[in-house]
């Protein structure tokens, strides 16, 4: 019997789509709207930045009109203190206690600073935030984040915006195996097949930003990712066949005519 599609649940809340999108890198709010619609996403990240007094209308209006929940990030933070304050500002501004926690340790690679990340995660969990940390593909760190009370873990496939795909699928699989919170593959996705692979590895969801927003046709790519995430999810549940060293015929050997 086929198992029905089960919704993603984070911190007790159903997230209807397993594709989470980032909103950075698009040329206009119209394109964002088209991307949101094509992706089917129900959760989208936004950054916290200084107001532009000249700006009229904005990203929050576009997301609200499509009934997409806002997941504020702490992008650009290099210390736990900065990230905690940013999360508090986001809670005040957007009325959500969810936060995609990013604490970066290196400007060139944008890799997470594990120590600052864990420090920030502990502080925010203690203060009642629903913390989704962007983390290295390190199963031990993921376990520590989960123990700190994080609602999910978001390991990178490869550096942010690199499009290098999932460089260490084995570590992602280990994290999925040990984790009792959702593992959401974040960062490094280059194209739709990377997202399918993440889901086949057992990830609960995939977060995609640049691979959609910086593609030639963002809305079309969003549609591709939606299909890829669903395909990978079904493939994971259906169960891939074992790899074999030699061939195994799929046509019967019995009843073969003597020609």
């Amino acid at each position, binding site marked *: 019997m086929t198992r029905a599609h089960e919704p993603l649940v984070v911190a007790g809340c159903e997230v209807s789509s397993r594709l989470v999108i*980032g*909103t*950075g*890198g*698009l040329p206009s709010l119209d394109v*964002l709207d088209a991307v949101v619609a094509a992706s089917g996403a129900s959760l989208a*990240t*936004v*950054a*916290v*930045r*200084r*107001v532009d*007094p000249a*700006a*009229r209308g*904005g*990203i*929050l209006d576009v997301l609200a009109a499509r009934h997409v929940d*806002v997941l*504020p*990030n702490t*992008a650009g933070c290099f210390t736990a203190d900065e990230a905690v*304050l940013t999360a*508090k*500002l*986001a809670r*005040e*501004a*957007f009325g959500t206690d969810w936060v995609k926690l990013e604490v970066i340790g290196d400007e060139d690679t944008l890799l997470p600073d594990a120590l600052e990340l864990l420090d920030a995660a502990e502080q925010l969990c203690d203060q009642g935030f629903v913390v989704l940390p962007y983390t290295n593909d390190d199963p031990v760190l993921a376990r520590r984040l989960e123990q700190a009370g994080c609602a999910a873990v978001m390991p990178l496939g490869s550096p*942010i*915006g690199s499009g290098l795909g999932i460089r260490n699928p084995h570590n992602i699989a280990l994290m999925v195996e040990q984790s009792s919170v959702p593992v959401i593959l974040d960062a490094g996705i280059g194209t739709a097949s990377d997202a399918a692979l993440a889901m086949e590895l057992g990830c609960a969801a995939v977060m995609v*930003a*640049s691979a959609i927003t910086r593609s030639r046709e963002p809305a079309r790519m969003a549609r591709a990712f939606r299909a890829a995430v669903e395909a990978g999810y079904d493939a994971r549940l259906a169960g891939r066949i074992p790899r074999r060293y030699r061939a195994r015929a799929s046509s019967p050997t019995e009843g073969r005519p003597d020609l």
Partner: protein
Amino acid sequence: MLGRMGDAIALGGAEVDITVNGHPETVPHGTTVADLVRAWCPSPDGVAVACNRAVVPKSEWSSRPLAARDRVEIVTAAAGG
């Protein structure tokens, strides 16, 4: 930008020098966080304020006067990954 606040200067209040989003600003004595947000933002929706690295909750905006050398950050949502 702070034209409405300029009226208060005529009332004889002293001025205070603050920093808003990295820009030096001079505002009339008694200017509150709420006044500042009104001057800087078309709408207070989706906006948060930190003063000297501490969040000022919306409920306190109108009762929080700005003091000399306050470093104010007014933030909102921006596109981001």
